[in-house]
């Protein structure tokens, strides 16, 4: 289960007033950091909690007539709707397909729900739908049901999409965020930070010239190869979307009660690094839409890397760290100097620094 953020005006202003400090939703609640986690823990789980939801995986594994299927849902809001490397349609299909894949499932069916804003140009809508149709074919999924609603101008950022997906599991392959073990190697499938910085570069009021394209891609073929080559040696899979690699690793460290130790260079493209330097952002927290992190038993490292590298989004796959017993629940990075740095989850959105 995930929550997402959009920007919308709220009526009624009152401050400084003696209000409880946290009486309403803030953008940071959609950041994928601690505020998002608290929102789920304090408001959603107490009401909806059950054995399938409580695992907080990318999807839920549920029994249906003696079979096990995986269900996952995600809502997509992005401004601008079209960006270098893709549009919201690519994200809407890849996002849910990837969430199913991270549960070890083979994606099969999608539903798609649209909130359309009055005034949205058909040209834009057509390009988004074309992207969804192409991606669905490429991912081997069918969009089998859907819904559209139209809202007044100003009530939505052009369009919002929700997709829900159903996928099927194969025997013996059950990656889960709670299955990391000391000794596991931590692999990432490709260069980090491209989606977030591609969006940042074209966002209104912030435009800068950068040769960065979103990495939006289906990760299902990578997972399929992992399953066929090393199978049960894959302990956890996570796509490093909102909150970036740092948040994905923290979630796994906590779910599995293990420590994660990063060491050596990370795969950060020079253009992403330069843009992050300029804006005072840390690429470890920048969103990806086509990068997975895999926790794999050490003896399967070479096989897993070979499986990932057989696909375009995985050609640059590499090991970035290991699972350790100490500092359970935390992610720590060994610096080039031999010092240590705690790579915590951010409280909310990453804020550009003054200095």
């Amino acid at each position: 289960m995930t929550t997402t953020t959009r920007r919308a005006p709220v009526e009624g202003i009152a401050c400084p007033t003696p209000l409880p400090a946290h009486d309403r939703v803030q953008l940071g609640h959609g950041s994928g950091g601690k505020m998002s986690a608290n929102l789920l823990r304090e408001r959603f789980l107490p009401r909806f909690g059950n054995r399938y939801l409580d695992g907080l995986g990318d999807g839920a594994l549920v029994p249906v007539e003696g079979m096990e299927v995986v269900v996952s849902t995600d809502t997509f809001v992005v401004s601008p709707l079209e960006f270098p490397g893709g549009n919201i349609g690519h994200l809407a299909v890849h996002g849910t397909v990837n969430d199913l894949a991270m549960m070890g499932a083979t994606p099969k069916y999608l539903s798609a729900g649209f909130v359309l804003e009055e005034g949205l140009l058909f040209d834009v809508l057509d390009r988004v739908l074309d992207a969804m149709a192409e991606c669905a074919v490429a991912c081997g999924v069918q969009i089998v049901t859907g819904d559209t609603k139209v809202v007044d101008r100003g009530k939505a950022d052009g369009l919002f999409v929700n997709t829900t997906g159903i996928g099927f599991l194969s025997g013996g392959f059950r990656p889960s965020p709670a299955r990391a073990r000391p000794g596991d190697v931590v692999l990432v499938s490709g260069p980090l930070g491209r989606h977030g910085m591609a969006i940042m570069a074209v966002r209104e009021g912030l435009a800068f010239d950068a040769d960065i394209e979103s990495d939006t891609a289906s990760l299902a073929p990578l997972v399929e190869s992992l399953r066929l080559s090393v199978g049960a040696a894959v302990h956890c899979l996570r796509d490093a979307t909102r909150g970036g690699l740092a948040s994905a690793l923290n979630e796994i460290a906590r779910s599995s009660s293990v420590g994660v130790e990063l060491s050596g260079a990370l795969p950060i493209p020079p253009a992403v690094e330069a843009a992050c330097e300029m804006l005072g952002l840390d690429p470890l927290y920048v969103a990806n839409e086509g990068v997975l992190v895999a926790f794999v038993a050490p003896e399967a490292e070479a096989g897993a890397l070979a499986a990932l590298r057989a696909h375009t989004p995985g050609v640059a796959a590499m090991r970035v760290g290991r699972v350790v017993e100490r500092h359970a629940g935390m992610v720590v990075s060994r610096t080039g100097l031999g010092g240590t740095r705690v790579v915590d989850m951010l409280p909310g959105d990453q804020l550009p620094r003054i200095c």
Partner: protein
Amino acid sequence: MKYLSEYRDPELARSLVERINRTVTKRWTLMEVCGGQTHTIVKQGIHEVLSDAVEMIHGPGCPVCVTPLEQIDRALHLAARPDVVFTSFGDMLRVPGSECDLLQIKARGGNVSVVYSPLDAVQLALSNPDKEVVFFAVGFETTAPANAMAVWRAKELGIENFSVLVSHVTVPPAMVAILEDPDNRVQGFLAAGHVCTVMGWKEYEPLADKYEVPIVVTGFEPLDILEGIWMAIRQLEDGRHEVENQYVRAVRREGNRPAQELVSKVFQPVDRGWRGIGTIPASGLGLRPELAAFDAERKFGLEGIHAEESPECRAGDVLRGHLKPYECPAFGTSCTPENPLGAPMVSSEGACAAYYNFGRMQAAARA
């Protein structure tokens, strides 16, 4: 990115660490003045690998940390006005005021915008003639020229719906306040490289002389910091106290003259409150009287807003190096990164937040 990777080379960094460890005959106490330097030190674990040779005290050079509560409250008041678009650098948004922060005002409908350049705020004023656009002009001498330029440009264009809430501070008076403190432990300074690109280092020469303290103008990359530390320690070991320049690729003794001239055309020295420290005479910049039309405090009648710091927060003692963050009674209990009492707990690299995380890791490692 060659200009960066050159100054991050781990081999060279390790050899500098060894050189520092070989040079010291005792453990010295240095202060890095600037928040950007603290950021690098914490991120790279420099304080940890040098812990036998030097104690690094994180200085008051983080504009987020030292902006007084009163100015934050004034910012919150402005941002909540329906006729105001409040613009700010990003990391001011989560700094707690008396009641809330700018992000919470935004959630309640306040129009709060992050800008990367104060000139973007002037542009916003031009394109929103029915709104009052206010820019939160904070920072040290580094951001002063760009902020001065924004005011000057608004004046040239005759823009009436633009104003600035000024909370500028300057480095040398803060260093004097630290050195004059009877409990001062700082034996040498890494001066803030970017401040010196604007101001040069002439103004530090009398300080090094009078207080017999080495001052090394230092950059921000790992190799810069390590070299700056090494230069300061060599002075201490030799019994010298001079101003030296490590950041030669960016800083000249005279600084940037046109930038200095622009700053003095727009701003003048004023007494300024520092969060947690109190008022330091002539330690800030305020708008010159002839530019009062751009002064948000005057325009919106904010002089009446006063604030009392939480007595629980000992940020001032932390910023002066008297107290390690973990020695503060509120540390990790009533003050955490999610609910900070004071600004050093806000940024993940702020002194309190940095120790909070590091301490958590050590506790987890022991468990």
